[in-house]
């Protein structure tokens, strides 16, 4: 059976496509170096539109109104510019309520876009631009450590990672956060209260990488202006041993926290990237493989949720689970040498 792969890799090649949601300008060219917070592409778009109904205002037919319209599609107009003028002794006018661009003229109406907004797309990782996607974005390539998570609050930043976790099931509490951590990325355990998120915001930190979070805090976490990346999920969950080992051994290194939302259809998911120098570029990792004996796997559901083990056997057909369900399953050896039977759909390969 096919297995999804969760990437927790000490050294790999990371290739990511970063694109704007609307057409815009790309600021980088092929072979240029980018930093995580560089604006690689930007776009302007109209936040609002204004519809000026000339025919209705002048109480004439749309065909006659079209003859009185003084602007054309594409015109950029300042505020109070003349749009249409009636004929007769007492002339009436229609003027632009705000500066903007004429989008459509016809049917006795003028549609303008007003209120420009700007979207900035940041690189989200350091690396080299290997491809430019015209008007949309770039493809970036780099080598380093990659640790994927399960939830992100949509923000990106980078900074020096400081470890505030001593064992995988630690809780990150507000008293562990002091002013010396200002501008750092904090590596912590479970977050159980809002106070911790608030104190981190006040410092401010450049990011939080945590094992798990109380689901009641998700709305607050989504509003924080610094990136929050949850590695293992919701509820009181220890950090998985592979991520714990890799992240804690990279204490005091520069990391990028790309806490983008997990999008099931685009495969964008939150991840921590630690750039590392290499002579020979390692292989790109696969996003899925076939389940096989010897693979390291992470458990996605109780009773061993978040734990890492290795597959020792893949019985043929369906196996009967302890709760009576029957499903294709694997025998998995855990760290303490205990062996458990886990349905394959509850596993993901770590690699």
């Amino acid at each position, binding site marked *: 059976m096919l297995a999804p792969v969760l990437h927790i890799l000490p050294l790999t090649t990371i290739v990511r496509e970063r694109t704007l949601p609307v057409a815009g300008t790309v600021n980088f060219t092929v072979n240029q170096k980018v930093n995580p917070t560089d604006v690689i592409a930007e776009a302007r778009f109209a936040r609002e539109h204004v519809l000026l109904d000339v025919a209705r205002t002048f109480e004439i037919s749309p065909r006659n109104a079209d003859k009185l319209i003084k602007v054309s599609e594409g015109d950029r107009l300042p505020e109070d510019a003349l749009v249409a003028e009636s004929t007769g002794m007492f002339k009436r006018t229609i003027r632009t309520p705000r500066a903007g661009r004429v989008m459509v003229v016809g049917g006795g109406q003028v549609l303008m876009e007003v209120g420009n907004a700007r979207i900035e797309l940041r690189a989200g990782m350091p690396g080299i631009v290997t491809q430019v996607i015209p008007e949309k974005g770039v493809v970036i390539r780099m080598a380093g450590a990659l640790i994927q998570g399960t939830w992100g609050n949509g923000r990106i930043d980078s900074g020096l990672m400081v470890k505030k976790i001593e064992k995988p099931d630690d809780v990150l509490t507000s008293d562990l956060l002091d002013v010396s951590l200002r501008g750092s990325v904090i590596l912590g355990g479970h977050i159980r209260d809002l106070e911790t998120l608030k104190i981190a915001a006040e410092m401010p930190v450049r990011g939080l990488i945590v094992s798990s979070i109380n689901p009641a805090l998700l709305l607050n976490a989504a509003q924080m202006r610094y990136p929050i990346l949850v590695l293992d999920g*919701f509820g009181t969950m220890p950090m998985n041993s592979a991520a714990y080992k890799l992240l804690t051994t990279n204490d005091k290194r520069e990391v990028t926290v790309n806490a983008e939302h997990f999008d*099931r259809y685009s*495969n964008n998911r939150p991840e921590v990237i630690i750039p590392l120098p290499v002579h020979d570029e390692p292989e790109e990792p696969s996003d899925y493989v076939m389940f096989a004996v010897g693979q390291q796997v992470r458990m996605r559901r109780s009773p061993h949720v978040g734990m890492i083990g290795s597959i020792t056997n893949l019985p043929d057909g369906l196996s009967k689970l302890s709760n009576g369900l029957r*499903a294709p399953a694997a025998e998995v050896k855990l760290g303490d040498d205990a062996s458990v039977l886990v349905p394959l759909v509850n596993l993901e390969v770590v690699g």
Partner: protein
Amino acid sequence: MPTSLVQNESILAIEVGTAVTRAVLFDVVEGQYRFVASGQAPSTAEAPFGDIGIGVREAITSLQSITGSSLLGQDNSLIAPSQSDGTGVDAVVAVVSAGPIVRTVVVGLLQDVSMQSARRLAESTYARVVDSLDLSDQRKPDEQLDAIVRSRPDLVILTGGTDGGASRSMLKVIEAVGLACYLMPEEKRPMVLYAGNEKLADDVKELLGAHAGKLVVGHNVRPSLEVEALGPAGSELASLVMDLRQRQLKGVDELQMWAGGNILPTAFAQGRMIRFLSQLYGSTRGLLSVNIGASSTSIAAGFGEELVLKTYPQFGLGENLAGLLQHTTIEDIMRWLPLDLPPNSLHEYLFQKSLYPGTIPGTSDEQAIAQAISRQVMYLAMRSARKEFPGSKHASKEVMRPLDLIVAGGGVISDGISLGQSLLMLLDAIQPVGILPILVDQNNLLPLLGVAAARNHHLPGQVIDSGAFTGLGTIISVVASANYGQQVLRAKLTYSDGTDARADVKFGGLEILPLPSGQSARLGLQPLNRADAGFGPGRSGSITVTGGAMGVVIDARGRPLQFPSDPVRRRELIKKWYYTVGG
């Protein structure tokens, strides 16, 4: 194709769900179509796979390992038609429920007329209404435009005007939709279904044709003020949703090609089959189908020619579980639990399961939580759907109308749990009244039969008659105003060999009289204290009933179901019910 060939062809039916993809083989055995076997694999619409074709091939491979015959060639392409060496299949049909929720804007003229129909139409598919626009809308025209653009719709359902009726106001609305489409990036423009005044078809094509992602000018859902006709527009919507899925999901185009166009949204195919069965068996009181999956809970009820089809993505057991508490409370879910678990564990379950929709319960506690959630989402879906059942305006809001048959499907009902637990879950969630059989569709065949019917109209009836569904038994639901423990019914089941089984049923009780599948017996019912056991309040009667895996089940637990307020007593009672149905 000559009829003789069509009648004898083998059919591979594919179901692509959010969590599971199934491949089912139907073939002719001794002159009749039969369900041969089913293979399944995890779905691959989502990351990291991003191609439904991978899961489809895995499911076919699983089917091959069961049947022993090859359906895929060495290059992994489908062998079609079937070969003389027994490999391959003659035809393919498919249903799809995988895919992101369909963000939908509904547009019409009058709130109580066309808008109501537009909403009903949207509820027949995997849609969430993200904005609506009608004549009573107080926003300025430019605000309306911006609202439509900001809502990023995948689909616009445009209704309004009776045939030959209002056109001026309708044209203004159409123009607004056209402008909004024009303002969106070309690759993100929504599909538009026009189902309004047919006289305006040409104007619609002119105003929207160049700006919509795809425009379908369909049948009016309100040809006159008094008549609502959702059927033809429903078919057009189903086809448009498949076009949308083709744009959103890799692999749908290949499946379309294999199926030669016989591909439908799963819920639509489920509805089609229920309407077909309702007509075939001349159901007077109605046939009900419930399907609970990761993408949605869907309810289809057929009342002769009339079909009520409701799809509730908000009640899916996958990604949308994280938002379930917007529609219900933790307490309302916990009332179904036989275990004493902290509310936090339920909260955490909802969010963790939403991360991994394809996972299954790993412990007995999780299994109990999964069943409690399933009961509550089915209960909510049923409460909403039955408002649309014929005659519902004058019916009790708390008690379901009597039906002729219930057939239920979906992984949580059919995969791995005992048939007794399946039955209890359905009784708790649907709370049927009267006397009726309940079937479980263990291989989720119903939607596949619905789509196969278009290819071969003999197939569905023959497959169903061959016993493809599992009969749980006949249910007698007693409606009574009585105190807990007070006797409400005397029942006597007389078997064909003359022996009998009797039960004195007390209010609050659940009793089972054994009657194996394939057998029938005469059931005599004598209600006490003006209880209604299906013949009217206080009326006795007898009826021939058919057996099933659970026999004849008398449910006197009350309608609506009443729970003790004390949580300890409530849990004890639920455990007793579990024990009664076999644990």
